[in-house]
């Protein structure tokens, strides 16, 4: 990361020669990275801890976006209520899916999981398109978040600061949940050895169900607060699938700090790449992915399989 910063400095010193640009890019990268983090961390948990390649993860984020848009815009309940209802609503929708579909594929070969979750994604896209139509849906921000804020060297949308804060809270909260609570102990035990945990009286089915709900809830939160970056529309579920998958793998499935580092590094690479030479932005991004994966075959902080 340090070398990347130096590189920017070198380039911009020719261009404008100010710290401003560097800080400016850094803060944009941070906000974008945090959006990715909030959405992807749930996927990282399902993939790393529950060993389910849930390609329909983005579909849940999208469902949340629709609920939030409906609550905040059409019902006029406001942003906070929108977020809350979106998380609750998405989890409620996910419960029967977990019970009747996902439970059948725990422990199945990865490709079988891919087949089913892609199928689920197709269904969600089709159904959303049918009920809500193909237009973009927005979630109106409250006044406080929609204003640009002057942070000294530039103006930044208050919403971006809010996203950064959300990301920090999610990272801290998850760390606390997994490392410091009773549930976290049960979860880690179940992951290490499900049969043994079962024998010790941990109700692994319940642990799985709760973890799944948490993952979906995080997807929902990410879908709503990230809607300014990744607008809500029916094709959302497939459009960003690759990005989510890449982020999770680069971070190492199942690792919270790994996912955080991956989001920040990829966010930085993406943002600086697009600033320095936008026309090669994708080259930058995927070349970085190839490089990282070759250097860290298990992701930044992945568990040994």
């Amino acid at each position: 990361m340090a070398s990347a910063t130096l590189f920017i400095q070198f380039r911009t010193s020719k261009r404008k020669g100010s710290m401003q640009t560097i800080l400016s890019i850094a803060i944009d990268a941070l906000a974008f990275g945090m959006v990715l983090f909030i959405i992807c961390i749930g996927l990282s948990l399902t993939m790393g801890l529950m060993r389910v390649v849930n390609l329909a993860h983005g579909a849940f984020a999208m469902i949340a976006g629709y609920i939030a848009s409906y609550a905040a815009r059409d019902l006029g309940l406001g942003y906070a209520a929108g977020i809350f209802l979106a998380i609750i609503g998405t989890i409620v929708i996910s419960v029967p899916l977990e019970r009747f579909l996902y439970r059948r594929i725990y422990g199945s070969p990865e490709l079988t999981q891919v087949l089913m979750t892609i199928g689920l994604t197709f269904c969600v896209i089709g159904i959303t398109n049918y009920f809500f139509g193909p237009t973009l849906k927005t979630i109106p921000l409250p006044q406080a978040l929609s204003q640009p804020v002057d942070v000294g060297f530039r103006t930044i949308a208050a919403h971006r600061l809010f996203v950064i804060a959300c990301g920090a809270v999610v990272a801290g909260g998850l760390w606390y949940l997994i490392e410091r609570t009773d549930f976290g102990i049960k979860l880690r035990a179940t992951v290490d050895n499900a049969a043994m945990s079962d024998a010790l009286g941990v109700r692994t089915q319940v642990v799985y169900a709760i973890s799944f709900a948490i993952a979906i809830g995080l997807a929902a939160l990410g879908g709503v607060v990230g809607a300014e970056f990744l607008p809500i529309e029916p094709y959302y579920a497939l459009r960003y699938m690759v990005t989510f998958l890449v982020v999770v793998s680069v971070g190492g499935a199942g690792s919270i700090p790994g996912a955080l580092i991956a989001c920040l590094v990829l966010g930085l690479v993406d943002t600086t790449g697009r600033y320095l030479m936008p026309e090669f932005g994708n080259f930058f991004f995927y070349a970085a992915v190839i490089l990282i994966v070759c250097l860290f075959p298990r992701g930044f902080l992945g568990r040994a399989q």
Partner: protein
Amino acid sequence: MTRGKRILGAAVGALLIGSAAAYADTVKVGIIGPFSGPFALQGKNFQAGVEAYMALNGKSVKGHDIEVIYRDLPAANPAQSRALAQELVVKEKVQYLGGVYFTPDAMAITPLLAQANTPLVIFNAATSAIMNTSPLVVRTSFTTAQTTNPLGKIASDEGVKKAITVVSDYGPGVDAENAFKKAFEAAGGQVVEAIRMPMNTTDFSPIMQRVRDSGAAGVFAFLPSGPPTLGFVKAFNETGLKKAGIKFYAPGDLTQESDLPALGEAAEGLKTGFHYSVAHDSPENKKFVEAATKAIGSADQLSFPAVGAYDGMHVIYKMIEATDGKQDAKKAVDAVKGLSWTSPRGPVRIEPETRHITQNIYLREVAKGADGKYINKEIQTFPDQKDPGLATQ
């Protein structure tokens, strides 16, 4: 299943029309468009335009019943495009092909036309070069160069000396960049920097940083309509460029009516050049909007592909009229060369040499309409614009 459906359709049709008209022949029109997938909205607009035209002008021409068959092509996919066109021509026996949203899909169909003896009326695909690949193609949409061209002069007239172009990095984006540069420099301006963004860009703030650093007084942007436009416009506001007084010019794809409710306040004041605004003030347009809104189901979803389809159907109806329901592609195309009429978008004409549509291009500004909804308000008209892309070839 398709065969069963066809038989069923024929049976139902016979019942409705009754025995007297059962002898009347049916002319089939095949429409290919993105009816599902990421561009489903555009496909829905195709359908709305077609249905609006048929609702207003009847479902038969000179006693020939017209049957429309839709085929879904969710994203640019020439192989599938060709397969669908072939099926429509060979199996469904359509006499006319219409629709087509993407350029490569059109390119895959044009080589078939002569052998199929079928004209293709393009409702959207906007690259100039398509017209050169077959004499049996007619286009009722626009080209990117056509909608971009007047913007160069406008920018210069508004006192912009230095401008930066920001376009999506793909064919139409590059076309737009070139067209603007040419027109702007012809008017005495200077393009200081040309940025091409990858198609999948979601965070535009680094781009806006570049715009700011370039020191340009105006920015010309081209993005295909769709989700990224929202992020782009928001980033333009949030990074303070709008507040700093940097002028913004773009073809109307960026402020497509169906995106305006989502863009909302952020888009207010944006100036775009385009061939059609849903808010165009004319009796023809009023009738069209009413019928098309009914067809599409929601006023928020209606936008420019619908008018391309509407006028496309007009051209197809004229072709059927000229050939009296017989399959004769050359005669059909010849009949509409030079055809002029008043479209919902204003006066238009099919240019005999290029078979592309000549039309007014309007400078519009996003503003609040009478009912409080945002509209593209026409503030200046550039009449009779041909496609500069074809004119140069």
